[in-house]
C-alpha cells in the first residue's frame, strides 16, 4: 500500500489542456473515485498515474517518490481496464500468472498466488479456459484477479464495470467492495457513474473540464455540493435547479410564482439572482414525503401534475410550479392524475443556493 499524490498535474494535447493543474492527495489504503462526465480528464489523470500517458507538467508521487519518469512496470501498480484487456492467447491461469512470469518468480510461487487470487474471485472452474470462452462478468473477474496477483502498491480501475449489463454491474460493484475489504489497498477508481462512485469510495473526486470541482466523502458531496455542477451530477434523480430572481427576501420565478428565501440563507450575500436547488427527496406531494426531521422548513404550494413515473416502492412525480417541472419523490404512492393541481411541500431547510455568476454554492448563514 502507498499514498498517491498529484501536484499541479497537467496534461496537454497540443493547445488543449485535458487536465489543468490538479492537486490531490490519496491516503494509504484509501478508496478514491474519480467521477465526471466524459471528457472531464478523469481517465487521463488515471493513465498519468499508471504511466501510460506522459505528464505535461506537475508531478505524480507514489509512496512519496516522484514517478514521472518511471515506466509503468517500475511503478508497482495494477490496472483494470474498461475492455478488460485480457491476453486472448493465454488461458485464464496464464493471464493471472503473467505478471509473475515476466518478473521471473519461481513457478511454485506463481501457482500459489494464482490459486489465492482464483479462490478470492471464484475462478477455479475457469482456470484452463481462454478469455474468448468467458462471459463479460467472468472476464471482469479475471481482469481483477490479474490485478491482485501482483500485490501492487496501488490499484487503478478505469471504468471497469461500464461494459457490463445493469444487473451484473450491481453484483460486481458489491464484489469490488468486498474485495477491497479483504485485500486492503490504495485504490483509484475512475467511473462516470455517480452511483458506483458513491457506493464504493471513501472519498469522491468530481471532475469537470480538466479541473476538480469538489473532493469529499459521499455524504459531503451529496449534502454540501460545492458547485451547481456537483449538485446536478450527484444524486438520482437529478437535483431540481431553477434560476430565479431575489426580490425582497423572496425567490421569484420568471412567471411571478415565488418561494421565500430559506431561513438559513437570510442575511447571506445572495445578489439579485441565483439558482435554487432542491433534491427530489425534499419536494413532495404534501403528506407523502419522508417523515419530516427536526429543523425542516416546509412551504406548501399548489402545483400541476404533468408526468407520473411509478417505481413500485415509490413514485416520481413531475409537477409544474413557477414555470418549472419539479421532480418529486412520493413515498406511499397514491393515485394522481396528470393535469390536476396538487399541494406540493418544498422543504427549504434542505435547499441549496448557487451563484449564477460562477456556479459556486452560496454559504448559508445558519441552520
Amino acid at each position, binding site marked *: 500500500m502507498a499514498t498517491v499524490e498529484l501536484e499541479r498535474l497537467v496534461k496537454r494535447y497540443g493547445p488543449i489542456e485535458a487536465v489543468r493543474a490538479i492537486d490531490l492527495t490519496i491516503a494509504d489504503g484509501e478508496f478514491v473515485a474519480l467521477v465526471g462526465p466524459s471528457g472531464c480528464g478523469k481517465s487521463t489523470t488515471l493513465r498519468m498515474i*499508471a*504511466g*501510460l500517458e506522459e505528464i505535461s507538467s506537475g508531478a505524480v508521487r507514489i509512496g512519496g517518490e516522484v514517478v514521472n519518469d518511471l*515506466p*509503468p*512496470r517500475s511503478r508497482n*501498480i*495494477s*490496472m483494470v*481496464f474498461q*475492455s*478488460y*484487456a*485480457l*491476453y*486472448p*492467447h493465454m488461458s485464464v491461469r496464464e493471464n493471472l500468472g*503473467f*505478471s509473475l512470469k*515476466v*518478473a521471473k518468480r519461481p513457478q511454485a510461487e506463481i501457482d500459489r498466488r494464482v490459486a489465492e487470487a482464483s479462490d478470492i474471485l471464484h475462478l477455479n472452474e475457469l482456470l484452463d479456459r*481462454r*478469455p*474468448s470462452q468467458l462471459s463479460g462478468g467472468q472476464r471482469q473477474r479475471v481482469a481483477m484477479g*490479474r490485478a491482485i496477483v*501482483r500485490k501492487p502498491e496501488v490499484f*487503478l480501475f478505469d471504468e471497469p464495470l461500464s461494459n457490463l449489463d445493469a444487473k451484473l454491474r450491481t453484483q460486481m460493484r458489491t464484489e469490488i467492495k468486498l474485495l477491497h475489504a479483504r485485500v486492503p489497498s490504495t485504490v483509484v477508481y475512475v467511473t462516470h457513474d455517480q452511483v458506483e462512485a458513491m457506493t464504493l469510495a471513501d472519498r469522491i473526486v468530481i471532475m469537470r473540464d480538466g479541473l476538480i470541482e469538489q473532493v469529499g466523502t459521499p455524504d459531503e458531496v451529496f449534502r454540501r455540493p460545492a458547485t451547481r455542477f456537483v449538485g446536478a451530477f450527484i444524486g438520482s434523480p437529478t437535483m431540481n435547479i431553477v434560476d430565479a430572481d431575489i426580490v425582497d427576501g423572496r425567490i421569484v420565478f420568471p412567471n411571478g410564482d415565488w418561494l421565500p428565501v430559506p431561513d438559513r440563507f437570510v442575511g447571506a450575500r445572495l445578489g439579485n439572482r441565483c439558482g435554487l436547488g432542491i433534491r427530489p427527496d425534499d419536494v413532495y406531494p404534501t403528506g407523502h414525503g419522508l417523515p419530516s426531521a427536526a429543523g425542516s422548513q416546509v412551504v406548501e404550494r399548489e402545483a400541476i401534475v404533468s408526468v407520473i413515473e411509478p417505481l413500485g416502492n415509490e413514485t416520481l412525480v413531475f409537477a409544474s410550479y413557477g414555470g418549472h417541472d419539479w421532480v418529486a419523490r412520493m413515498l406511499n404512492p397514491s393515485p394522481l392524475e396528470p393535469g390536476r393541481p396538487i399541494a406540493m411541500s418544498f422543504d427549504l431547510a434542505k435547499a441549496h443556493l448557487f451563484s449564477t455568476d460562477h456556479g459556486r454554492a452560496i454559504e448559508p448563514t445558519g441552520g
Partner: protein
Amino acid sequence: MKSLRLGTPFLLLLPAIVVLLATVALPLALSFYSSLTPFKLTRPETLWVFVGARNYVNAFTDPVFWAAFGRTVLLLTVALNLEMLLGLGLALLMERVTRGQRLLRTLMMFPMMFSPILVGFQFKFMFNDNVGLINNALQSLGITDAAIPWLINGTLAFIAIVTAEVWSSTPVFAILILAGLLAMPREPIEAAKVDGCTPWQSFRYVTWPFIMPFAYIAMTIRSLDVGRAYDIVKIMTDGGPARRTELIWTLVARTAYSDARMGAANAMAYASIALSIVFTVYFFRKLAAARTQIAAEW
C-alpha cells in the same frame, strides 16, 4: 419436360463449365499427359509415345534437378526469413511514425512497383564486377582492392540474387505486418506494460502473437512467389555460371524451350508445384493455429 427441368441448373452453369474446362482442366490434363511422354517440341509425333513415369524417374535420379530443387528450397528459406525480419523491423518503426506515415508507407512500397525483370537488370548492373556500384563503393572506401566476382562465384551470385529478391519484396512483409500492428487492440499492450513487461517482453508475449497471423499470410504469398522464382535469376545469372544458381524454374524453362524437351520439363514442373503446395499447406496450418490462438474474429 421433366428432363429439361432437371437440366436447367446444368444448362445455366454450362458457360462457366465450358470456360473452366477449356482454360484449366484441358491444359492441366494435357500437360500432365505430356509429362508421361518423351514429347519434344521439334518432333510433335513424340507426343503419342507413352513412356509412363520415365520422365519423373529421370528427374528424380538427376543430380542437376535435385541441386536446382535444393537451391530453390534454400532461396525460399533464406529470402523469406530475411524478408520477415526486415519487414517486421520496418513495420515496427513505421508504426511509431506519427507524422507523414501515409507518405512513408507509399515510399516503402516503391520496390514493389518495379517489374522483377527491371530489378534483375538493376542489380545485375550494381553487382557487375567491373562497372558495378557495389565493387566501386567497396574499392573507393578502401575496403578491398580486388574486384569481387559477385555474379561469377556461385555463393556470391546466390547472395546477390537473395539481395535483389529481399530488396524487391520486403515491403510485402512490412505492409502486412504493419496492417496487423495497426489492427491490434491497444489495451493488451498497455496491460502488459502495467503488468511489468519490458518493451522486449511486451513484444514477445503480446504483440508478436497478435501479428503472427499477418506474418503467415505474407509467408504464404511470398513462398508461392519465390517457389516460382524465375525472372530475377534469369536476368542476373541465367542460372549460371555453370548452373551454380540454377533454380527449378530456370531449369524447367531451359529444358522446355532451349532443349525443347517439353515432356521432361512438365515432369519437373509438377515436382515444383508439389513443393509449392507443401509450403502453402504448411503456412496455412500455421496461420489457422495462430488465428485460433488470438481468438481472431476475422
